[in-house]
């Protein structure tokens, strides 16, 4: 199966860092990201062409309206929001803006609630172009206390609760998470942050009240269907970590979840949808889901990293094929490309095994698998879940 990776004499990473010197222009836009104070003039960024296609397909930017309460306890908001769009998001939040434009971001409405003698409460409403994108932002971090804000939401495992509903998708059921004064929530095409400048019982109460106001009357959207491709288990050996499942479209977000490459070697874009999940080894024993959830999974002994499964659905099979070849050339140059429609293939590398399969418009990649069998099982199980069409 091709060359052993060590025989290739890979280029030293330090030499690669040297290659990042003059001549490397990257693919990002050339606008300046000025700080909030002392800002210098900067040029507007080049619009993302895939987003432009999306807008035309949807008939133009969506118009979202939200009527937040004028007051929240002692706090009062201004009449209207501060409107942030893709051209101004970086002056508002510097490089953090890349996370939001890495999803199908439309605009951001910012309200600052103020109260005499108290720190403010900042409400940020990130209007996205799809429900999946709102979900994706929440999936960046599943930590925090699960909070139910709407009557029609999933029942979640609140402390003291005697029952817990489990969703069909392998992710936590939470749609709102709270911690240290920050409430993050997903509500259809909206992702919101409600941040108390100082956490007190009074501010927490109002943060939650504002959260309830945000979601009131809004549809409870389904989670991305792509998530169902992720297997919950790899045989009896590995179990998916629900709190380590990310939905994404951008290689920058992927790198935040799992650093793969400094460049976009998978040709991710706003026209794609992807999910990455981490798996832990579990010991044999009780097999009920409730019991399994109660047990803490442990990393495989001797393994420096957890196995991960990455599933990417491209707009069409041709795009998927090009991305697949790009990925192989950049990451697995020693691998032999399987013929179209062939069974999953796997390649041993420095830190375990990589399994991969191209199935129509879906690319499935197992990373950091402990052995070839695990890599193949991960990929094949996901491929079965994806179906022959490689998608929905």
């Amino acid at each position, binding site marked *: 199966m091709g060359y052993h990776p060590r025989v290739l004499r*890979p*280029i*030293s*990473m*330090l030499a*690669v*860092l040297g*290659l*990042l*010197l003059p*001549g*490397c222009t*990257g*693919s*990002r836009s*050339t*606008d*300046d*990201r*000025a700080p*909030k*104070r*002392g*800002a*210098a003039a900067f040029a507007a*960024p080049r619009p993302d062409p895939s987003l432009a296609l999306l807008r035309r397909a949807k008939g133009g930017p969506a118009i979202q309206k939200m009527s937040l309460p004028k007051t929240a306890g002692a706090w009062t908001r201004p009449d209207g929001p501060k409107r942030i769009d893709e051209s101004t998001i*970086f002056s508002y*939040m*510097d*490089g*953090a803006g*890349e*996370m939001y434009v890495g999803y199908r971001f439309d605009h951001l409405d910012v309200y600052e609630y103020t109260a005499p003698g108290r720190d403010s409460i900042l409400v940020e409403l990130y209007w996205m172009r799809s429900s999946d994108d709102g979900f994706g932002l929440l999936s960046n*971090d599943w*930590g*925090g206390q699960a909070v139910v804000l709407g009557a029609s939401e999933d029942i979640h495992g609140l402390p003291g609760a005697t029952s817990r509903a489990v969703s069909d998708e392998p992710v936590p059921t939470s749609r709102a998470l709270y911690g*240290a*004064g*920050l409430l993050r929530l997903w509500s259809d095409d909206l992702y919101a942050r409600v941040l108390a400048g*100082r*956490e007190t019982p009074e501010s927490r109460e109002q943060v939650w009240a504002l959260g309830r106001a945000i979601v009131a009357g809004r549809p409870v959207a389904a989670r991305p269907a792509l998530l169902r491709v992720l297997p919950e288990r790899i045989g009896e050996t590995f179990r998916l970590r629900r709190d380590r499942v990310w939905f994404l479209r951008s290689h*920058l977000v992927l*790198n*935040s*979840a*799992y*650093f*793969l*490459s*400094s*460049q976009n*070697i998978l040709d991710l874009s706003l026209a794609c949808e992807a999910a990455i999940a981490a798996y832990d080894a579990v010991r044999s024993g009780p097999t009920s889901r409730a019991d399994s959830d109660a047990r803490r999974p442990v990393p495989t002994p*001797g393994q*420096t*990293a957890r196995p991960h499964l990455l599933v990417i659905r491209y707009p069409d099979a041709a795009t998927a094929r090009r991305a697949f070849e790009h990925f192989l050339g*950049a*990451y697995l140059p020693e691998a032999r490309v399987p013929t179209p429609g062939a069974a999953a293939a796997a390649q041993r*590398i*420095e*830190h375990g095994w990589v399994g991969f399969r191209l199935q129509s418009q879906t690319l499935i990649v197992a990373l950091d698998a402990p052995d070839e069998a695990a890599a193949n099982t991960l990929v094949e199980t996901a491929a079965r879940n994806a179906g022959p069409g490689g998608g929905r």
Partner: protein
Amino acid sequence: MSKPVTRRDFMRESAGTAAAALGASLFGLDHLDAIARQAPRQARSATVTLVRDRNALTASHEVDPTVLARMLSDLVVRVTGERTPRAAWLSLVKPSDVVGIVPTGHLNPTHGELFEAVRRSLIDAGVPAQNIVNANGGIEKARVCTALVALPALKAHWLTGIGTVLKNYILFSGGPSRYHDENNARLGEIWNLPGVKGKTRLVLVDGLRPLCDKGPQVDPRYLWDYNGLIAGVDPVAVETIALRIILEKRQALRGEPWPLSPPPLCVAAADTVYGLGTSRMNEIKLNAAGWTEGLLVGP
């Protein structure tokens, strides 16, 4: 387009090292240190000073200016080896200098109290008040200065791994977005720009209430009262210690290694490519003083 840096490059570089054998956290300091060690260059040495005080912040996370002033005095004396804070600052700058203080101005910014404490210290050392400026901004702000004091706030960064020392001068580049994505490894080049190069007299990191994840956008779950100031004249060494603090805190939070992703490529590159200082732990001496609870780093 240049060849990408991949996860495999990191694993190759540390393959066979003690770090890999022990299953050290991927892209933790041990991995980065192993990578930096492989670059052929002359040996360097640097001292990084860390001063902490449990009373630097109140229970509501407010700065106690009196305690902070005392910490700053102690810090500059330790960094320079001088007897007094005045002598310490005068060993770093001249009264005739135009001193630009470069704070983090936005999103978990440098504490205003620390900026003011540095400014007052410089005035007490004889630098006229009108010659002390806030140099956070474009390159023109650096050009008018004859000396710079880097005063960043300690925070992780979701795009670059860490967004503290090396990223502090990003606005001098005139194009900050150029350093997102893979180009974050080139942050060191900004320190060598005309108008910037050679002007930094002191790197002083605001580690009072650092952010160990999700930066620059603040998530208060990842803020904690470290109550520390970290300083030195070697920006890469200071960044390396700052990075270790972040990594150790992350591990303490999760109870298992929680590496930064993406890895902070800029740190090793600042050492091996731009020659700004050392990122090798065996070349860095840490001089820690004060409060020891939750120190996270050792000498």
